[in-house]
């Protein structure tokens, strides 16, 4: 899965295009659409399925942690669209996460919605908020735009605290577990909510990752990357830069809001100062950079890192020392692996297996190719 080529064109059927007699380079060259490629894809899917099965047998606490990882990964995947692929730094994604979470919470508690039916509402609201946050990008650029997202992040907890009748204010809000029972068709009882949330989050994450992959390869995705890499050149080529940025913010916000919605179902309790402050945004950005900016599975790897690193550092050390170690680990990773974990693994893997599209112009010399996706964001 790591080696799926990002710049892939739709793989036209061109069987047996294996080149021979390369002097050096990757040991195996796999062409998209051929049998070995399909085999690799199938193997990856099987491996993921096996890992999921193994994880679902873990004790409830571990399984809960992994569910949390999936939810954070969805949120980071949303952030990746706007920060990784469109190059707009957002420090306001905690607000989307929170808006999604509170939408679900309020609809369940006050209006007795079924948990699953709140998801479209949460996605819709976060999409609209995303468009609104993206709107200033018509005039405001760079770090100044980051200030707009900062304003959103800082104001969200304040607004939640203020809108007390709806949100429960500073005291927070509890969603009773009888509201959060798994739907009947799953055949699970209320006590098995952990298993239900585990599989449900995993499924949603898979869908989100697939959607993001397709979006990035689509015409709109190309527009996003062009906007990131060179705004003026993109505009000169007929891309509506403002529209691209605004819509990217909308989609990104919607996905992170979806994660928030799942978070409510997973936690069952919300408080404005718990998970929806600026620190959550920082956690998302950290995860994104650790995993690999503008990579397909970077968000998942990054989510694992930000969820488990604090536990890991806390298990060897105590209290504030854990924070110090976390900070040091962060800096060390930036120094040693600037491409992020996925970017680094991808570079290593390319030395062994290189996957190229079937209509690659220089198929015979594919080893001369650099990494297909410069894992960098411009700002």
């Amino acid at each position, binding site marked *: 899965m790591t080696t799926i080529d990002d710049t892939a064109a739709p793989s036209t059927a061109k069987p047996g295009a294996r080149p021979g007699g390369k002097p050096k380079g990757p040991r195996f060259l796999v062409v998209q659409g051929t049998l070995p490629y399909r085999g690799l894809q199938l193997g990856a899917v099987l491996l993921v399925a096996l890992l999921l099965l193994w994880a679902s047998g873990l004790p409830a606490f571990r399984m809960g942690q992994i569910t949390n990882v999936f939810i954070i990964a969805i949120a980071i995947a949303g952030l990746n669209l706007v920060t990784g692929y469109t190059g707009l730094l957002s420090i306001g994604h905690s607000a989307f996460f929170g808006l999604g979470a509170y939408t679900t919470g309020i609809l369940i508690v006050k209006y007795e919605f079924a948990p699953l039916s709140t998801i479209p509402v949460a996605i819709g609201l976060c999409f609209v908020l995303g468009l609104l946050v993206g709107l200033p990008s018509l005039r405001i650029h760079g770090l100044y735009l980051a200030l707009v997202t*900062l304003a959103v992040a800082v*104001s969200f907890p304040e607004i939640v605290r203020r809108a007390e009748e709806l949100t429960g204010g500073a005291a927070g809000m509890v969603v009773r577990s009888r509201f959060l029972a798994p739907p009947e068709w799953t055949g699970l009882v209320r006590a098995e909510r952990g298993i239900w949330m585990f599989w449900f989050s995993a499924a949603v994450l898979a869908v989100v990752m697939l959607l993001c992959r397709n979006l990035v390869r689509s015409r709109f995705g190309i527009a996003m990357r062009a906007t990131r890499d060179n705004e003026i050149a993109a505009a000169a080529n007929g891309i509506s830069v403002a529209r691209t940025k605004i819509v990217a913010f909308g989609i990104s916000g919607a996905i992170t809001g979806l994660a928030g919605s799942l978070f409510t179902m997973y936690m069952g309790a919300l408080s404005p100062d718990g998970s929806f402050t600026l620190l959550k945004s920082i956690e998302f950005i*950290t995860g994104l950079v650790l995993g690999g900016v503008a990579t397909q599975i970077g968000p998942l790897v990054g989510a694992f890192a930000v969820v488990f690193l604090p536990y890991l550092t806390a298990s060897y050390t105590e209290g504030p020392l854990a924070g110090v170690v976390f*900070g040091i680990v962060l*800096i060390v990773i930036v120094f040693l692996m600037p491409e992020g974990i996925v970017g680094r693994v991808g570079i290593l893997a390319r030395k062994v297996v290189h996957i190229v599209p079937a209509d690659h112009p220089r198929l015979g010399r594919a080893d001369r190719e650099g990494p297909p996706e410069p894992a960098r964001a411009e700002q």
Partner: protein
Amino acid sequence: MELFLERLITGLTNGSIYALLALALVVVFRGTGTLNFAQGELALFTTFFAWWLTTESIPVWIAIIASLIAGFVLGALIERLLIRPVQRRNDMAVLIVALGLFTGLNSLAGLIWGSETKIMPSPFPNGIDDFVSVGGARLYFDALGVVGALVALMIVLTLLFRYTRVGLHMRAVADNAESATLAGVRTSRILAIGWGLSGAIGALAGVLVTPLSPQQLGLTSMFHVFIAASAAALFGGLDSLTGAVVGGITIGVLEAMLTGYVSFIGGSLQQTSALFIIVAILFLRPNGLFGTKRLVRV
């Protein structure tokens, strides 16, 4: 009228603190072109250091000077060891290093000095009776001292940038680092001095704000100040010293007035409303009030 004056004074005092930290951010931005996310926590760390010195029965003024020096050294070291190696790569790397420092410095302060709230002595007389009456409003000396410190710092910085060799070099590097290097400016040293300077300014902001703030000195003391200061720096245009001061004071006064007069906002939405007014103004002036417009060559 009295109430208005008192609110104005509160706003000016808080605004001066924001302006101080915003100045630190601007000095870094002019040199390095990034927003230093760890600026607030750096100030927190040096303030803890100053507090620790005062508990060792060192006079508060000497403790403050020591914390300024510590801020300078820390800032310069961070630039040299952590920022410069990743700077060439991209902005995102610098950002993550700053976030790492943000968490690391905060926890380090907690690790060394404990997380319970400390009481930092004020360098100015701050008893109940230490005030002068202005039109019926009480103007406390410690608030006056903060405003005075801001004015003094502005004068020092202006003199530094205008009339000294180092200041000239700093302006040259900010304007065009490559040309400055070709003209014989030792760019790397100037950058380190810039970060050191901003570390020292941040330290000053820290020791001045904590005796005034109701939360005193805790691990979260500087967070709100940092948010307001970064908003102030952006509002003023990121590369303008005047802009940072105007921005800081605007935010301070806006916060105080909105809290006082708009009952809907009250004490709970002050940051939100101040930030949104700034976003609205940025809409009209996308590069901040005093920022230079960057021309892009195609």
